[in-house]
Protein backbone atom coordinates (compact mmCIF):
# COMPACT_ATOMS: atom_id res chain seq x y z
CA UNK A 1 0.00 0.00 0.00
CA UNK A 2 1.45 3.30 -1.09
CA UNK A 3 0.17 6.85 -0.40
CA UNK A 4 0.68 9.00 -3.49
CA UNK A 5 0.06 12.08 -1.37
CA UNK A 6 0.34 11.67 2.35
CA UNK A 7 -2.71 12.90 4.29
CA UNK A 8 -1.98 15.49 6.98
CA UNK A 9 -3.26 13.43 9.89
CA UNK A 10 -1.09 10.44 8.94
CA UNK A 11 1.98 12.69 8.74
CA UNK A 12 1.23 14.15 12.16
CA UNK A 13 0.71 10.70 13.66
CA UNK A 14 3.99 9.50 12.17
CA UNK A 15 5.80 12.53 13.55
CA UNK A 16 4.23 11.98 16.97
CA UNK A 17 5.20 8.33 16.83
CA UNK A 18 8.80 9.23 16.03
CA UNK A 19 8.92 11.80 18.80
CA UNK A 20 7.59 9.26 21.23
CA UNK A 21 4.00 10.06 22.17
CA UNK A 22 1.08 8.12 20.75
CA UNK A 23 -1.66 5.91 22.07
CA UNK A 24 -0.42 2.27 22.27
CA UNK A 25 -3.29 0.94 20.12
CA UNK A 26 -2.76 3.63 17.48
CA UNK A 27 0.98 2.98 17.64
CA UNK A 28 0.54 -0.66 16.65
CA UNK A 29 -1.75 0.28 13.77
CA UNK A 30 0.59 2.99 12.57
CA UNK A 31 3.66 0.75 12.75
CA UNK A 32 1.80 -1.87 10.71
CA UNK A 33 0.95 0.81 8.18
CA UNK A 34 4.52 2.13 8.10
CA UNK A 35 5.77 -1.37 7.40
CA UNK A 36 3.56 -1.55 4.32
CA UNK A 37 3.65 2.06 3.04
CA UNK A 38 6.89 3.27 1.51
CA UNK A 39 6.06 7.01 1.72
CA UNK A 40 5.07 6.70 5.37
CA UNK A 41 8.17 4.67 6.06
CA UNK A 42 10.23 7.47 4.58
CA UNK A 43 8.35 10.06 6.65
CA UNK A 44 8.83 7.97 9.75
CA UNK A 45 12.56 7.61 9.20
CA UNK A 46 12.80 11.37 8.59
CA UNK A 47 10.99 12.07 11.84
CA UNK A 48 13.25 9.64 13.67
CA UNK A 49 16.27 11.45 12.23
CA UNK A 50 14.91 14.78 13.43
CA UNK A 51 14.40 13.35 16.90
CA UNK A 52 17.94 11.96 16.96
CA UNK A 53 19.29 15.30 15.81
CA UNK A 54 17.44 17.19 18.54
CA UNK A 55 18.45 14.71 21.21
CA UNK A 56 22.07 14.85 20.10
CA UNK A 57 21.97 18.64 20.05
CA UNK A 58 20.60 18.86 23.60
CA UNK A 59 23.04 16.19 24.77
CA UNK A 60 25.92 18.20 23.38
CA UNK A 61 24.79 21.14 25.52
CA UNK A 62 25.00 19.15 28.73
CA UNK A 63 27.92 16.91 27.85
CA UNK A 64 31.22 17.37 29.57
CA UNK A 65 33.07 16.73 32.76
CA UNK A 66 34.17 19.29 35.30
CA UNK A 67 37.82 20.23 35.33
CA UNK A 68 40.29 18.19 37.46
CA UNK A 69 40.61 21.14 39.86
CA UNK A 70 36.90 21.05 40.57
CA UNK A 71 37.20 18.28 43.15
CA UNK A 72 40.04 20.03 44.97
CA UNK A 73 38.11 23.30 45.06
CA UNK A 74 35.04 21.53 46.41
CA UNK A 75 37.13 19.96 49.19
CA UNK A 76 38.58 23.34 50.09
CA UNK A 77 35.11 24.90 50.19
CA UNK A 78 33.80 22.15 52.44
CA UNK A 79 36.81 22.59 54.71
CA UNK A 80 36.00 26.27 55.03
CA UNK A 81 32.42 25.50 56.02
CA UNK A 82 31.71 26.24 59.68
CA UNK A 83 28.68 23.99 59.69
CA UNK A 84 28.98 20.33 58.90
CA UNK A 85 26.27 18.07 57.59
CA UNK A 86 25.43 17.24 61.20
CA UNK A 87 24.80 20.88 61.97
CA UNK A 88 28.06 21.01 64.00
CA UNK A 89 29.58 24.46 64.44
CA UNK A 90 33.26 24.94 64.71
CA UNK A 91 33.69 27.62 67.40
CA UNK A 92 36.93 28.80 65.83
CA UNK A 93 35.11 29.62 62.61
CA UNK A 94 32.15 31.55 63.94
CA UNK A 95 32.75 34.67 61.88
CA UNK A 96 31.73 33.07 58.61
CA UNK A 97 29.17 34.41 56.13
CA UNK A 98 26.58 31.94 57.41
CA UNK A 99 26.86 33.12 61.02
CA UNK A 100 27.93 36.70 60.48
CA UNK A 101 24.47 38.26 60.41
CA UNK A 102 23.03 36.58 63.50
CA UNK A 103 26.16 37.42 65.49
CA UNK A 104 26.06 41.04 64.31
CA UNK A 105 22.41 41.31 65.35
CA UNK A 106 23.11 39.89 68.83
CA UNK A 107 26.08 42.24 69.30
CA UNK A 108 23.95 45.22 68.19
CA UNK A 109 21.14 44.38 70.61
CA UNK A 110 23.61 43.94 73.47
CA UNK A 111 25.22 47.29 72.70
CA UNK A 112 21.80 48.96 72.67
CA UNK A 113 20.90 47.44 76.05
CA UNK A 114 24.20 48.64 77.56
CA UNK A 115 23.60 52.17 76.22
CA UNK A 116 20.05 52.25 77.65
CA UNK A 117 21.22 51.01 81.06
CA UNK A 118 24.01 53.59 81.12
CA UNK A 119 21.64 56.41 80.16
CA UNK A 120 19.11 55.41 82.83
CA UNK A 121 21.79 55.16 85.52
CA UNK A 122 23.25 58.56 84.73
CA UNK A 123 19.76 60.13 84.70
CA UNK A 124 18.96 58.68 88.11
CA UNK A 125 22.26 59.94 89.47
CA UNK A 126 21.58 63.42 88.13
CA UNK A 127 18.13 63.45 89.71
CA UNK A 128 19.57 62.44 93.06
CA UNK A 129 22.11 65.25 92.98
CA UNK A 130 19.41 67.85 92.12
CA UNK A 131 18.31 70.27 94.94
CA UNK A 132 15.54 68.89 97.07
CA UNK A 133 13.94 72.27 97.48
CA UNK A 134 13.03 74.01 94.31
CA UNK A 135 10.88 76.90 93.34
CA UNK A 136 7.93 75.72 91.36
CA UNK A 137 5.05 77.58 89.87
CA UNK A 138 2.53 78.03 92.64
CA UNK A 139 -0.47 77.28 90.49
CA UNK A 140 0.52 73.73 89.67
CA UNK A 141 1.71 72.49 93.07
CA UNK A 142 0.26 74.43 95.96
CA UNK A 143 -2.96 73.27 97.55
CA UNK A 144 -6.06 75.28 96.92
CA UNK A 145 -6.33 76.59 100.45
CA UNK A 146 -2.79 77.96 100.60
CA UNK A 147 -3.98 81.43 99.89
CA UNK A 148 -2.21 81.77 96.57
CA UNK A 149 -4.21 82.30 93.46
CA UNK A 150 -4.37 79.27 91.21
CA UNK A 151 -4.59 79.71 87.50
CA UNK A 152 -7.66 78.10 86.00
CA UNK A 153 -6.61 75.02 84.08
CA UNK A 154 -8.18 73.10 81.27
CA UNK A 155 -6.69 69.83 82.53
CA UNK A 156 -9.14 67.28 83.78
CA UNK A 157 -8.68 67.43 87.56
CA UNK A 158 -9.20 63.70 88.07
CA UNK A 159 -6.65 62.86 85.43
CA UNK A 160 -4.29 65.51 86.75
CA UNK A 161 -4.53 64.04 90.25
CA UNK A 162 -3.77 60.56 88.94
CA UNK A 163 -0.82 61.91 87.02
CA UNK A 164 0.48 63.69 90.10
CA UNK A 165 0.01 60.58 92.18
CA UNK A 166 1.92 58.46 89.69
CA UNK A 167 4.63 61.11 89.45
CA UNK A 168 4.95 61.29 93.22
CA UNK A 169 5.11 57.51 93.49
CA UNK A 170 7.77 57.50 90.78
CA UNK A 171 9.72 60.19 92.59
CA UNK A 172 9.33 58.22 95.81
CA UNK A 173 10.95 55.30 94.08
CA UNK A 174 13.81 57.36 92.73
CA UNK A 175 14.38 59.67 95.76
CA UNK A 176 14.92 58.37 99.21
CA UNK A 177 14.19 61.77 100.85
CA UNK A 178 10.79 63.50 100.52
CA UNK A 179 10.44 66.24 98.01
CA UNK A 180 9.39 69.64 99.41
CA UNK A 181 7.55 72.02 97.19
CA UNK A 182 7.34 75.63 98.33
CA UNK A 183 6.25 78.85 96.72
CA UNK A 184 8.73 81.47 95.58
CA UNK A 185 8.00 83.80 98.50
CA UNK A 186 8.51 81.07 101.05
CA UNK A 187 11.74 80.06 99.40
CA UNK A 188 12.99 83.62 99.48
CA UNK A 189 12.07 83.88 103.15
CA UNK A 190 13.92 80.67 103.92
CA UNK A 191 16.93 81.94 102.00
CA UNK A 192 16.92 85.23 103.89
CA UNK A 193 16.65 83.44 107.20
CA UNK A 194 19.49 81.11 106.27
CA UNK A 195 21.62 84.06 105.20
CA UNK A 196 20.88 85.97 108.39
CA UNK A 197 21.69 82.93 110.51
CA UNK A 198 24.95 82.41 108.69
CA UNK A 199 25.87 86.08 109.07
CA UNK A 200 25.19 85.93 112.77
CA UNK A 201 22.42 88.49 112.68
CA UNK A 202 20.02 86.00 114.13
CA UNK A 203 20.76 83.94 117.16
CA UNK A 204 19.64 80.53 116.06
CA UNK A 205 19.76 79.15 119.62
CA UNK A 206 17.44 81.81 120.84
CA UNK A 207 15.16 81.38 117.88
CA UNK A 208 14.96 77.68 118.49
CA UNK A 209 14.24 78.20 122.22
CA UNK A 210 11.50 80.70 121.46
CA UNK A 211 9.96 78.26 119.01
CA UNK A 212 9.98 75.61 121.71
CA UNK A 213 8.32 78.00 124.16
CA UNK A 214 5.69 78.86 121.62
CA UNK A 215 5.01 75.21 121.15
CA UNK A 216 4.71 74.71 124.88
CA UNK A 217 2.30 77.65 125.12
CA UNK A 218 0.16 76.14 122.46
CA UNK A 219 -0.01 72.80 124.19
CA UNK A 220 -3.43 71.25 124.06
CA UNK A 221 -5.34 70.65 127.24
CA UNK A 222 -8.51 68.64 127.74
CA UNK A 223 -11.62 70.75 127.75
CA UNK A 224 -13.55 70.74 131.00
CA UNK A 225 -17.25 70.80 130.57
CA UNK A 226 -19.29 72.10 133.50
CA UNK A 227 -23.01 71.57 133.54
CA UNK A 228 -25.08 74.72 133.24
CA UNK A 229 -27.38 75.71 136.13
CA UNK A 230 -30.96 76.19 135.03
CA UNK A 231 -32.98 79.10 136.67
CA UNK A 232 -36.01 78.16 138.87
CA UNK A 233 -39.25 77.94 137.01
CA UNK A 234 -42.01 80.18 138.29
CA UNK A 235 -45.52 78.77 137.69
CA UNK A 236 -47.68 81.05 135.69
CA UNK A 237 -50.98 81.85 137.42
CA UNK A 238 -54.10 83.43 136.12
CA UNK A 239 -56.12 84.90 138.88
CA UNK A 240 -59.22 85.18 136.77
CA UNK A 241 -59.31 81.69 135.30
CA UNK A 242 -57.91 79.81 138.23
CA UNK A 243 -54.72 77.82 138.25
CA UNK A 244 -52.65 77.33 135.04
CA UNK A 245 -53.01 74.21 132.94
CA UNK A 246 -49.25 73.84 132.95
CA UNK A 247 -48.27 72.33 136.22
CA UNK A 248 -44.79 71.49 137.50
Amino acid at each position, binding site marked *: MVHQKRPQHVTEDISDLALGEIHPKAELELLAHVAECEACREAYSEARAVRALIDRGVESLVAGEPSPQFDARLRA*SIAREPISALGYRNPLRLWEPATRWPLSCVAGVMALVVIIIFAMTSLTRRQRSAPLIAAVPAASTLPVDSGIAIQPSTVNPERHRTKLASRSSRSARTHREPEVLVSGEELRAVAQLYEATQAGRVDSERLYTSQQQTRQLLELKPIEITPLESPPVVPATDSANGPSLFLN
Partner: protein
Amino acid sequence: MDVLEASFPGHAVSRETSLEQEFERRLADCPTLAYRVALGVLRNTAEAEDVAQEAMLRAYRNFHRLRDRECFRSWLARMAWRLALDRIRAAGRRERREQAAFLDNRQAAGVENVLVAREFQRSVARALDALPEKLRLVMTLAAIEGYNTGEVAKLTRLPEGTVKSRLFLARKKLAESMQWFIKKDHNT
Protein backbone atom coordinates in the same frame (compact mmCIF):
# COMPACT_ATOMS: atom_id res chain seq x y z
CA MET B 1 39.69 8.43 52.50
CA ASP B 2 36.76 10.59 51.55
CA VAL B 3 36.44 14.28 50.92
CA LEU B 4 35.20 15.01 54.42
CA GLU B 5 37.95 13.06 56.09
CA ALA B 6 40.49 15.02 54.09
CA SER B 7 38.75 18.27 54.95
CA PHE B 8 38.39 17.71 58.69
CA PRO B 9 41.45 15.73 59.74
CA GLY B 10 41.01 16.29 63.46
CA HIS B 11 37.50 16.59 64.67
CA ALA B 12 35.13 15.73 61.83
CA VAL B 13 36.03 12.08 61.50
CA SER B 14 36.17 11.52 65.22
CA ARG B 15 32.55 12.66 65.48
CA GLU B 16 29.54 10.72 64.37
CA THR B 17 30.48 10.09 60.79
CA SER B 18 27.58 8.03 59.57
CA LEU B 19 25.72 11.03 58.20
CA GLU B 20 28.78 12.43 56.53
CA GLN B 21 29.67 9.07 55.07
CA GLU B 22 26.19 8.82 53.71
CA PHE B 23 26.50 12.26 52.19
CA GLU B 24 29.76 11.18 50.62
CA ARG B 25 28.18 8.04 49.24
CA ARG B 26 25.23 9.89 47.80
CA LEU B 27 27.50 12.43 46.19
CA ALA B 28 29.61 9.66 44.68
CA ASP B 29 26.46 8.32 42.95
CA CYS B 30 26.07 11.52 40.99
CA PRO B 31 29.48 13.17 40.71
CA THR B 32 28.69 15.22 37.62
CA LEU B 33 24.93 15.63 37.92
CA ALA B 34 25.00 19.13 39.39
CA TYR B 35 27.67 20.22 36.94
CA ARG B 36 25.81 18.93 33.92
CA VAL B 37 22.50 20.40 34.99
CA ALA B 38 24.20 23.76 35.47
CA LEU B 39 25.96 23.39 32.13
CA GLY B 40 22.63 22.67 30.46
CA VAL B 41 21.38 26.04 31.64
CA LEU B 42 24.51 28.19 31.57
CA ARG B 43 26.52 26.55 28.72
CA ASN B 44 29.71 27.86 30.22
CA THR B 45 32.07 25.41 31.89
CA ALA B 46 33.52 27.84 34.43
CA GLU B 47 30.14 29.14 35.53
CA ALA B 48 28.71 25.64 35.58
CA GLU B 49 31.51 24.58 37.91
CA ASP B 50 30.80 27.51 40.22
CA VAL B 51 27.11 26.69 40.34
CA ALA B 52 27.76 22.97 40.83
CA GLN B 53 30.11 23.75 43.69
CA GLU B 54 27.56 26.05 45.29
CA ALA B 55 24.83 23.41 44.92
CA MET B 56 27.03 20.74 46.49
CA LEU B 57 27.95 23.03 49.37
CA ARG B 58 24.31 23.76 50.01
CA ALA B 59 23.59 20.07 49.91
CA TYR B 60 26.38 19.52 52.44
CA ARG B 61 25.07 22.22 54.75
CA ASN B 62 21.50 20.99 54.66
CA PHE B 63 21.98 17.26 54.27
CA HIS B 64 20.90 16.65 57.88
CA ARG B 65 17.55 18.27 57.05
CA LEU B 66 16.85 15.95 54.12
CA ARG B 67 14.41 13.38 55.45
CA ASP B 68 14.19 11.09 52.45
CA ARG B 69 17.78 10.40 51.51
CA GLU B 70 16.66 8.52 48.41
CA CYS B 71 15.67 11.87 46.94
CA PHE B 72 19.22 13.18 47.16
CA ARG B 73 19.79 13.15 43.38
CA SER B 74 16.59 15.00 42.57
CA TRP B 75 17.25 17.40 45.43
CA LEU B 76 20.73 18.16 44.16
CA ALA B 77 19.59 18.44 40.54
CA ARG B 78 16.83 20.86 41.45
CA MET B 79 19.20 22.92 43.54
CA ALA B 80 21.71 23.15 40.70
CA TRP B 81 18.91 24.00 38.26
CA ARG B 82 17.58 26.82 40.42
CA LEU B 83 21.01 28.22 41.16
CA ALA B 84 21.89 28.22 37.47
CA LEU B 85 18.63 29.97 36.59
CA ASP B 86 19.23 32.52 39.32
CA ARG B 87 22.66 33.21 37.95
CA ILE B 88 21.30 33.72 34.47
CA ARG B 89 18.53 35.98 35.70
CA ALA B 90 20.87 37.98 37.87
CA ALA B 91 23.41 38.84 35.24
CA GLY B 92 21.80 38.37 31.84
CA ARG B 93 24.67 36.35 30.51
CA ARG B 94 23.10 35.15 27.29
CA GLU B 95 25.70 36.72 25.02
CA ARG B 96 28.57 35.37 27.03
CA ARG B 97 26.92 31.97 27.12
CA GLU B 98 26.63 31.84 23.35
CA GLN B 99 30.27 32.80 22.96
CA ALA B 100 31.22 30.14 25.46
CA ALA B 101 29.13 27.56 23.62
CA PHE B 102 31.15 28.33 20.53
CA LEU B 103 34.44 27.88 22.35
CA ASP B 104 33.34 24.63 23.97
CA ASN B 105 32.07 23.36 20.68
CA ARG B 106 35.30 24.16 18.86
CA GLN B 107 37.11 21.95 21.33
CA ALA B 108 34.62 19.09 20.99
CA ALA B 109 33.79 19.25 17.32
CA GLY B 110 36.51 16.93 16.19
CA VAL B 111 36.21 16.04 12.55
CA GLU B 112 32.89 17.82 12.01
CA ASN B 113 32.73 21.11 10.34
CA VAL B 114 33.22 23.69 13.08
CA LEU B 115 30.97 26.29 11.52
CA VAL B 116 28.05 23.94 10.96
CA ALA B 117 28.41 22.47 14.43
CA ARG B 118 28.51 25.94 15.92
CA GLU B 119 25.41 27.03 14.06
CA PHE B 120 23.60 23.85 14.99
CA GLN B 121 24.47 24.11 18.66
CA ARG B 122 23.44 27.74 18.76
CA SER B 123 20.09 26.96 17.21
CA VAL B 124 19.52 24.09 19.66
CA ALA B 125 20.45 26.34 22.58
CA ARG B 126 18.13 29.08 21.37
CA ALA B 127 15.27 26.64 20.87
CA LEU B 128 15.87 25.08 24.28
CA ASP B 129 15.90 28.48 25.94
CA ALA B 130 12.58 29.31 24.31
CA LEU B 131 10.89 26.30 25.91
CA PRO B 132 8.71 26.69 29.00
CA GLU B 133 10.67 25.91 32.14
CA LYS B 134 8.96 22.62 32.98
CA LEU B 135 9.61 21.30 29.45
CA ARG B 136 13.18 22.59 29.49
CA LEU B 137 13.91 20.90 32.81
CA VAL B 138 12.60 17.54 31.61
CA MET B 139 14.46 17.81 28.31
CA THR B 140 17.77 18.74 29.98
CA LEU B 141 17.51 16.02 32.59
CA ALA B 142 16.54 13.49 29.93
CA ALA B 143 19.63 14.40 27.95
CA ILE B 144 21.76 13.99 31.08
CA GLU B 145 20.17 10.67 31.97
CA GLY B 146 20.41 9.24 28.44
CA TYR B 147 16.67 9.76 27.81
CA ASN B 148 15.68 7.31 30.49
CA THR B 149 12.22 8.55 31.42
CA GLY B 150 12.14 6.49 34.62
CA GLU B 151 15.24 8.24 35.92
CA VAL B 152 13.89 11.63 34.90
CA ALA B 153 10.65 10.81 36.72
CA LYS B 154 12.66 10.06 39.86
CA LEU B 155 14.67 13.25 39.51
CA THR B 156 11.66 15.46 38.95
CA ARG B 157 9.39 13.44 41.25
CA LEU B 158 6.75 13.39 38.53
CA PRO B 159 4.79 10.40 37.18
CA GLU B 160 6.57 8.72 34.30
CA GLY B 161 3.61 9.37 32.01
CA THR B 162 3.90 13.09 32.69
CA VAL B 163 7.61 12.96 31.93
CA LYS B 164 6.97 11.16 28.63
CA SER B 165 4.34 13.63 27.64
CA ARG B 166 6.52 16.63 28.52
CA LEU B 167 9.44 15.12 26.69
CA PHE B 168 7.31 14.65 23.63
CA LEU B 169 6.06 18.23 23.78
CA ALA B 170 9.59 19.53 24.27
CA ARG B 171 10.88 17.59 21.27
CA LYS B 172 7.98 18.74 19.16
CA LYS B 173 8.57 22.37 20.02
CA LEU B 174 12.29 22.00 19.45
CA ALA B 175 11.63 20.41 16.06
CA GLU B 176 9.33 23.28 15.15
CA SER B 177 11.84 25.86 16.29
CA MET B 178 14.69 24.20 14.37
CA GLN B 179 12.66 23.49 11.27
CA TRP B 180 14.71 25.84 9.10
CA PHE B 181 17.94 24.20 10.20
CA ILE B 182 16.64 20.66 9.76
CA LYS B 183 15.40 21.43 6.25
CA LYS B 184 18.71 23.02 5.34
CA ASP B 185 20.56 20.08 6.80
CA HIS B 186 18.46 17.66 4.76
CA ASN B 187 19.01 19.64 1.57
CA THR B 188 22.75 19.64 2.10
